[in-house]
């Protein structure tokens, strides 16, 4: 019975925590510019992250090591340092986009410009991490994140042609604006497949002392949790496709996001979008800052964990502090959150192989996983999708830069 509750909580927090500015913005932009045509990108990204999260959980449960532990132990210092530097760099940009997302929501709610909110948001995020236990806030914020289900309610109320939506899941070539199409596809992949997610998930599995009896729970949480999360992204895409696309409106400003629900739900729709954005992005801010701090702490052998008090582990706590405030600088100097999102998502896609391929090596290492190494399907799916994402990113990023200048 307890196990069922654990699974339920795991799924709920995965679903509630799935959407953040990356998935919301990229799905909205895709729907607005290309209708249902890019639904396949969301599906591909969701499948990949579901596999990766399941692998992360399985790795932790069987080997009793987090992914970061194993990256250092198996590959040594030079590799671990390269991986950490790349992940810190790219994830810091994602973190900046999330802080910007909370700022954007607050601007829409109050009218005060984003730079005004940069430090307060950083302070709130920092305060939650410094003064409370992670479990409570993580779960709390993720459960609040269920407000994003409003997008599904909205999408259903619009009565989309489900046949047409289904066709969007079949990969197709763009009829026009090819550079933008592929760049948007890449951004969606980068938004769905975030390396910090499976690093974080494996840390949680160790903290919760998972063992081999958790393998089925792990599979359930990964597939159902990520699956439903992807479903939320598709809902955003459908909304944008039905509201913006027919009028040839592209999503270029975050102020357009409330229009996803206000036509259908009226004024409450506006507040639902604002709340969804604020909560989802705050949750992502906390999670990314922690994931990065865990990566460094585990790799260097420091104390780490949910209930670590600043007095007990100054290095760990000061590290996430620096990350949160560094991320807020972008908003402080008025970098547009949507631009920040596009850049950080596409860079995430481009750098995927650096985190994913070594992780696959670990997932096939019998000395860690004994009988539970990957089956060939998992290896192929993940390798294919991440290499695809990276190749597409490397091609489309320069094209997009050239195209928009």
């Amino acid at each position: 019975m307890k196990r069922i509750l654990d699974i339920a909580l795991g799924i709920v927090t995965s679903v509630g925590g799935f959407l953040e500015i990356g998935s919301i913005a990229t799905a909205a932009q895709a729907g607005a510019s290309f209708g249902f045509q890019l639904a396949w990108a969301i599906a591909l990204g969701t499948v990949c992250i579901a596999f990766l999260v399941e692998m992360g959980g399985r790795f932790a449960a069987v080997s009793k090591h987090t992914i970061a532990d194993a990256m250092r132990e198996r590959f040594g210092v030079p590799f671990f340092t390269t991986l950490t530097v790349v992940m810190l760099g790219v994830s810091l940009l994602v973190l900046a986009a999330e802080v910007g997302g909370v700022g954007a929501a607050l601007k829409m709610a109050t009218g005060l410009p984003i730079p005004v909110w940069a430090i307060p948001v950083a302070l709130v995020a920092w305060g939650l991490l410094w003064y409370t236990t992670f479990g409570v806030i993580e779960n709390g914020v993720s459960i609040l994140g269920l407000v994003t289900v409003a997008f599904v309610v909205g999408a259903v109320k619009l009565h989309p042609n489900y046949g047409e939506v289904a066709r969007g899941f079949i990969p197709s070539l763009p009829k026009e604006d090819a550079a933008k199409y592929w760049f948007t596809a890449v951004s969606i992949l980068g938004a769905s497949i975030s390396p910090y997610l499976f690093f974080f998930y494996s840390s949680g599995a160790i903290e919760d002392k998972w063992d081999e009896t958790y393998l089925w729970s792990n599979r359930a949480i990964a597939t159902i949790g990520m699956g439903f999360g992807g479903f939320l992204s598709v809902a955003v895409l459908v909304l944008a496709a039905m509201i913006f696309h027919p009028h040839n409106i592209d999503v270029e400003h975050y102020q357009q996001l409330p229009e996803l629900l206000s036509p259908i739900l009226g004024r409450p729709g506006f507040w639902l979008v604002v709340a969804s954005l604020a909560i989802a992005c705050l949750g992502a801010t906390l999670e990314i800052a922690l994931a990065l701090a865990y990566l460094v702490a585990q790799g260097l052998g420091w104390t780490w964990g949910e209930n670590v008090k600043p007095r007990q582990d100054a290095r760990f706590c000061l590290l996430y502090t620096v990350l949160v405030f560094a991320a807020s600088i972008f908003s402080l100097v008025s970098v547009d959150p949507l631009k920040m999102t596009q850049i950080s998502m596409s860079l995430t896609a481009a750098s995927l192989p650096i985190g994913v391929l070594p992780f696959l090596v670990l997932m096939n290492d019998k000395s860690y996983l004994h009988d539970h190494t990957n089956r060939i399907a998992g290896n192929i799916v993940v390798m294919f999708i991440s290499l695809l994402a990276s190749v597409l990113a490397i091609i489309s990023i320069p094209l997009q830069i050239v195209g928009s200048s």
Partner: protein
Amino acid sequence: MKILEVHVERLLGRKVIDSEGRTVGRIEEMRAEVVDGELAVTEFHLGSAALLERVGSVVIQLPLFRLFGSTKPARSVPWNLVDLSDPRHPRLRGRLDEIGTPISRSDRPSRPS
């Protein structure tokens, strides 16, 4: 008597050359056993791939990577045949064809947990 110290992590990946200048392999692993009450290095495992020396064996086991893996087996060399007086240039005492025992890839150490 001066005590010469070498660091394991600095030896890792270094090429071992034999008396005729041929490459025997790169130091991938060092096996240690208790000898006369002390833990001491008894064998050096030399592998072939340069960049992949710590990734190597597992990468080769991955289905797709079999295409890229080298087919040269790892060799196990007893400690007395390796001259570490210049740690940057480890030398084999003797010739390549005089030594050893290739070790099979399935002989991988098990990770303590």
